[in-house]
Structure formats: C-alpha cells, structure tokens
C-alpha cells in the first residue's frame, strides 16, 4: 500500500511508538489489579493453596494418626480444633483435606465451564444442525441430574480419586454452563459488531474468542465461581451417600458428612470443615465478582 497523500488537518507526524494493545482479558486484568475485592480473594485463595500444598505447616498431626481414646476431644490442648469421632485431629483433616477438596472444586468447575462454554457458544453461533446436535447432546446429559449421574458413575469407576471424581462431575455437570452460554450467545450474535467482524472476514474462531466470549463472560463467571463451592459441596453430598472419595483420601466433604452425624452432640466436628468450605466458596465467589466487575465495567462505570 502506498502512502496516500492526504491533506492533514493537523501538522502532527504519525509517531510510530506502538503502545501495548490489551485484549479484553488484558484490559480486565488492568482493572483487576486495582480491585480490593480481587486482592482479598487472592489472599484467601493463596492461603488455601498453601494449605493444600503444605498441609503439614498447619498441624503436627496427620489425618491417619487417630487415637480412638481421644474421640471427640474438645478444642484446645493437644488438638487445636478438637478431635473427631475417630480421635483424628480436625485441623489435620482440614489441612490435608484441602488438597482433594480444592482440586475437585477447581478442576471440575473449570472443566465443566470450559466444556460448557465451548459447546454452548459453538451451538448458538453456528446454529442450524450444529446447534440441534449439540443441544440435543446436552439435553441427554442435562436430563440426568448431576448427583444421580455421579452416583451411578462413581459406582462404575474402578479407581476413585480426585481426578476420576472431577471427570465425572464434569461429565454430568457441563450442561448448565452450556445452556447459559448458548442463550447469551444467541443474544450477542445478532449484534451488528459481530456482523462487522464477519465482514472483515475475521475467522469464526477469532470471533468466538474475541467478540463473543468477552461479551458473555460475565454470567459465565458467576456460574463458574459459584460452581466451585457447589462442586465441593457435591463431593460432600456424595460422601454423605457414601460414594465420594475413598476413606484414605481426606476431604472436607467427608469430614462434613461424618461430622453431620454428630452435629447435635459435637457441632465443632462438622462446623470447622464447613467453615473451611464456606471460606473457600467466599473466596472464589469474590474472585468471580471481581473478575466479573473487571469485564463488565465497560457498562458498570456509567
């Protein structure tokens, strides 16, 4: 392209000093950096991560060293938060359980969100038979309630661990996100800026990624971050139904399910792990809220 010779209204010379152009995600990050909500949640999550990676920093006990003689020992003394029915240290259960619970929550929520978003967006964006096919596939999975599906699948699974559990939760859990993503995409894809991008022949993948995704991400983030807590709780529900993780993998869900049985006599046994769960939920939801604000602040700022 030769340089056009245009009368210039100002005498300013085009200065070639490219500034960094941030993507929607990059821009969101710029806004995130100054959000207190974000940093609070990051601190809590960082703490939880340290807990999950180095549980031994927080307790001198291990969850498999249990002395029945200390069954339901009160808090303080040898046991910081007391001991459970088996005489295991509650703090140790929480510290060592963090790994499994966080992994299940985060991995399955991320996985379900990723699968759901991809399928939902693709279905709505391309429409026609693609939509029909994907929507019907999601109907099949949607029709099988998460807990029911997990009950059956967990029984079929030979090796139960955090990964297989996460896989199962993803397998039966992605449809919610898919439907929400689909409905949001249906809305966005009629917008003129999508048409504009198409006319520039921006290829579909890029349109999905740069135009559609950032414009539907707000509700998705709400769903995904709430999902983390929901899925940790789902593991607890499965433990309650005795089909959660095997006994030698400590998890908050198991601790809560076990503690629930003695809730009336020794509420602490359940409350402490439940508190850990609540804190986690709180942290991730706050993180989601902060991220959502960062994305949504285009409109928010008005």
């Amino acid at each position, binding site marked *: *392209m*030769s*340089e*056009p*010779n*245009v*009368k*210039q*209204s100002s005498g*300013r010379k*085009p*200065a*070639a*000093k*490219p*500034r960094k*152009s*941030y*993507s*929607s995600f990059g*821009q969101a990050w710029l806004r995130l950096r100054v959000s207190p909500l974000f940093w609070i949640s990051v601190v809590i999550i960082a703490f939880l991560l340290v807990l999950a990676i180095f549980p031994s920093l927080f307790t001198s006990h291990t969850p498999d060293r249990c002395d029945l003689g200390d069954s339901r020992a009160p808090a303080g003394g040898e046991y910081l938060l007391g001991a459970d029915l088996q005489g295991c240290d509650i703090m140790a259960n929480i510290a060592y359980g963090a790994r499994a619970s966080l992994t299940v929550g985060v991995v399955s929520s991320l996985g379900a969100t990723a699968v759901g978003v991809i399928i939902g967006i693709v279905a709505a964006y391309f429409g026609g038979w693609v939509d029909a096919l994907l929507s019907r596939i999601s109907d099949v999975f949607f029709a099988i309630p998460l807990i029911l599906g997990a009950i059956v699948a967990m029984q079929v699974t030979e090796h139960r661990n955090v990964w297989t559990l996460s896989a199962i939760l993803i397998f039966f859990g992605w449809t919610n996100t898919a439907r929400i993503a689909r409905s949001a995409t249906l809305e966005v894809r009629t*917008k*003129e*800026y999508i*048409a*504009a*991008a198409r*006319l*520039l*022949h*921006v*290829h579909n993948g*890029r349109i999905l990624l*740069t*135009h559609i995704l*950032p*414009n539907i991400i707000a509700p998705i983030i709400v769903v995904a971050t709430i999902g983390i807590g929901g899925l940790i709780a789902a593991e607890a529900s499965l433990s309650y139904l005795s089909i959660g993780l095997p006994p030698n993998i400590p998890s908050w869900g198991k601790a809560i399910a076990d503690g629930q049985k003695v809730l009336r006599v020794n509420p602490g046994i359940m409350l402490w792990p439940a508190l850990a769960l609540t804190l986690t939920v709180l942290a991730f939801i706050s993180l989601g809220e902060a991220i959502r604000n960062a*994305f949504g602040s*285009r*409109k928010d*700022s*008005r």
Partner: protein
Amino acid sequence: MTLDITNLRIAYPHGRTDKPAVESFSLSVGANERVAIVGESGSGKSTVANAIMGLLPGKASVTGSIKLDGTELIGLPTREWYKVRGAQIGYVPQDPMLSLNEVWTIGYHFRETIATHRLVPHEDGRDAWRKLAADRLREVGLNDAERVLKQYPHQLSGGMRQRVLIALALLARPKLIIADEPTSALDVVVQKQILDLLEDLTDRLGSSLILITHDLGLVADRCTRVSVLYRGDQVETGSIDEVIRAPKQAYTKHLLEAVPKLSAIRSRAFNDFKDAEKVLEIRHLYKEYPLKRSGWFFNRHGASILQASDDVNLTVRSGECRALVGESGSGKSTIAKIVMGLEKPTRGDVIIQGRNRWDIRGQELDEQAHHIQIVFQDPYASLDPQFTVQRTLLEPFAVHHRQWSADERYERILHLLELVGLDEDLLGRYPDELSGGQRQRVAIARALALEPEILVLDEAVSALDVIVRAQILETLRDLRERLGLSMLFITHDLAVVAEIADSVSVINHGRIVESGAVSDVFLNPQDDYTKELLAAVPGRAAF
C-alpha cells in the same frame, strides 16, 4: 420557563488527559427560544445535554450550576427528577439505535410514557393511549402509525427510530426540549416536517428548544440563538445574526466556510464512468418483510407484506461514487445489508465484480474483505463494547496482514486516525466513552483499513460537523482517485451528494424512481419526489 446554565464544567476521568470535556459553559434559555449548540464533533455537546438531564455516567464529575426555573438540577434527588424528566424537559438522545428497548414494541414505549405522565384521562378507557400515540407518530411523519406501534425497534429503519424517539420526547409537551442531533438520520423532507413541528411547539406553546446539530443551514433557518463549542470551550455565543452572519471567532468562521453547498455541483467537473467496469450490480432485487401480528407462540401471518425493496436495479462502476438518497424508511439500509450479505433478498441478484454474491466462498470470501466493506448506519452498535478503539482498528490487520510487525500495524492505525481526523489519545477508549461523531469515524477508519475496492457507506457522515465531514469527504475522494475506490453512498444530505457523488439514485418506497448523473438529477429533476426533496433542503436562504 428559563434554563440557566452557569459555569458548567464536566470532566471524565481519563488516565493521562485531565482536560475536561466541557469547561466554563454558560447558557440561558428563555421561553419561546430556540437555541442551537453547534461545534466540532467531540466538543462536548452531548455532554452538556446529558448534564442537563442528569444522565451523565457516574464517574463524570460535574461542577457549576444548572437551574430550571430556579431549581438547581445538579444533585437533584431521584424523586424530584420524576417531575422534571419527560414532563418538563423532553430529551431526544443522539443514538436512536440503542435508545429503544429491543424487547418491547414501540407501542409499549408510548403506553408506559403516557401512563407515567398521565397524559390521557382514566375515563377515556384502556386504549385511549393508542390514539394519542398514533397521533404523535403521525406528527413526526410516521403515517403508518398503527403498524409502527406494533413493531419492535429492530424492525424499523434508523430514521423511523429517530422519529419515534422525537415523538416520545414531545409526548408530554415539555417546556424544554433538548434534541441531540434529532434529524441526523432523516431525509430533508421529513426533517423539514420535524423542524416545523418543533418550531410550532415553541411558538405556540411557549416551549423552548435546545437543538444540538452540525447542520448550520438548519441553525440559520430555525434558531434564534446559537452557542459554538470547540474542544470543550464555548468559543462564541449570541444571536443567529451575530454568530452566523458575522462570526467573530476563527473557528466559527472556519465552520461556516466548510458548509457544503448544493451549488457545488455547478463548479464541479464530473467524470464519466459509462465505460468503466461494473463492480457492483444489483438486478431486480426484491425484499419483503412479512408484517406479522405477534402472537405469544405462533405468529399469525397477516396478509400484509412490507415491500422494502421493489425491483431495485443499481450499478456502481469502478471508481464511481453512487449516491442513494430517499425518504427515511424507503429501503436504503435494506439494500446495503443485502449487498453485504447480511440479509437474504426475497428475489434478485447481487453481483460483485462479476460474481454472484452467494457464489463466493472459502478463500475468495477471505479476499472479499479487501473488495467490499461497509460503514453501518449506526456506528455504536457496530463497535464491540469490549474493544478499545485501538483493538477495533487493529483487528483487520490481525486477520489480514499477519506478517506485519506491531510497529507497522500501529503506524497504520495512526495513519487511519489521521484520515478520519481522530486524535491518538482516543486509542485507549471504549465505544461508550466516545462522542457520536467519534464513533462514526472509528467505524469509517475500520472500513478503510483494508483498502477495499468497494465501500458502502450508510449515513456515514451524518453525525459529523462540517469541518470533519469535509475532511472525510476529501479523504474518500482522494482514495477514489488514487486507488479507484468505488462507493455506494447512502445519505439524506443532498449537499454531501453534490459534493462527492458522481451519480445518484433516488429511492422511494423501495423503488428507484430516478437515477442518473448528479448534475442531471439535481439541476433537472424529473420525478415528483425528487423535486420535493430538492425543495426541502434547509439553509438555502442563508447560503
């Protein structure tokens, strides 16, 4: 009624520049007055209007005073606003496309406003509002009012929506009308009707009008006083006679000089494109929209069909600029959308560079981006709200010129900005932080990015002040000369047509009624509608 604005200062927080959008703005408007605010695109006109309505975004900081009949409006509590907005001040927003709620019919908008301000007495029954609404729609030239009331915003043309918004603003016969570019999407005939109406309201009912516009001819014809803004500063204010006929400030003079004139035709040389290759050809194009009555689940197909395009034939030859003019709602945008492949015609062919539009696939489609581009009628809706100006402009290069380095691309963007007269500072902004004219220019810049061979412009310069517009027209002319750019130029501004177009087609009710070289059509119109159109051009007296 009096409105007193004193020392208004409004600033939006922006990282680097802390220059306010409006500074020390003062204006007072009395009863029966029609005051115009004119000025460069981005100079703060809409900002002032928003400030009067109390609708500035939360982050904007406002100081000074805005008094309506002695009541301070800045910081007025929400409850008090109910008595002001809609009732005492009617507001016509600049952007007609997004200002109507897509999920409701036009009728709903009227009903709700009528109910809010109790404009029809209860005794008149449940459907009384409909009559009032229909009357008001007819007032603004929407003669098919019953139909419009049942339609949803996306089913209306740009000009129709704009008129709906005007009718809504005037519904309660407010004492003060603030109209932000109310006729930017309207053809001259309708524009005249609207301005007559506004004039009538101020004369008869004692209302006042603040008219924000870039059409100086219109200002000269209709207004009593004018205030000129330049980069946030009020450079001149006074009566029409003082400012328009004897401007003191350099900017005002500059502005007046740049006003395009119909008479430009006489002094222009026209190229003859008869032998040039046809780059765009529309053959026997029909587009029908079924006019459905909406049921809850099933849409009962009424017998009626809206003929948006009726046997349209149109040719654009290489290097030619063909203008398409016509009444608002006559089917111009429909043609543009069909040409771009965004709507399927009911019948007929669109041939682009010898190939049928719907035969182009795959790799060719990719190249198509270089061949044909469009500037949509509504610039805001066509910009991704999540994209900064920089990203919007980078996108074409990210797709089509991947081999370019970041520096090259950036340089290219700066060049594009220059072409449309935008400042580098805007690169970091989002569409909702831009003025109407700035948005429109971003859209133009994007369309030019890939240097297309054919450009479809749908009211692409309607929101621009005359100086910027002149610059952009210059750019387009230049591109045509150097690169052989062909254009389909949809506009209602006949002066613009005179200035840039080689040939013109006049469309009325979906049919092309007259077609030919601009000089022939304008100097010697055949069709009645064309004649009417030419007669309605404002500002003839002034210029």
